């Protein structure tokens, strides 16, 4: 099996695998905090709660969720970091 990669044209890619709930959001926060506003970030998350949590998180912290792609429990998200 090949290495997991981003394919949505992002600047950076993070694979959060099975992380969930607070662990996933803290990891997202840590990953995105040092990035400049406008950065395109692709995230892969396998947890079944992620399709609900990641859009909600983006709304709360001011990031734009541009694309959600992939199958159930194996979704890629393209996020533009807010200002």
């Amino acid at each position, binding site marked *: 099996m090949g290495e997991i990669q981003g394919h949505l044209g992002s600047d950076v890619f993070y694979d959060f695998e099975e992380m969930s*709930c*607070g*662990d996933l*959001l*803290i990891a*997202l*926060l*840590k990953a995105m905090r040092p990035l400049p506003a406008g950065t395109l970030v692709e995230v892969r998350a396998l947890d079944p709660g992620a399709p609900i*949590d990641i859009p*909600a*998180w983006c709304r*709360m*912290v*001011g990031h734009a969720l541009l694309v959600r792609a992939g199958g159930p429990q194996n979704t890629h998200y393209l996020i533009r970091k807010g200002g």
Partner: protein
Amino acid sequence: MAKLLISITNAKNDTDRATVGCVVANASVASGVDTVVFLSTEGVRLSQEGYADDIHEEGFAPLKKLLTDFVDAGGAIWVCSPCFKKRGLDENKLVLGATIVGGAKAVEFLSTGGSCMTY
């Protein structure tokens, strides 16, 4: 800014509840919410350096890491003063980010727009 107080009333007597409380606190602080973990009754034991080192619920990050991440992300830990004193715990062994408070602090936080979840 929205405010959320996560009340944790358990420690090694119920590591599942203690852990999930910390996970939800991390979800809150990572979402830009002004977040406080309020440790009371048995939960105050989590405020002691070293106590949580061996708490690791299956499927979750170790509790020590959860609390460290929480504080690093800007969260505050408040420790119920009478609960702390009743158990003879050590003020000199508080984990980073923990402050001993009285009930007035929690009441002020909640009565000025804060919400609460309890574990």
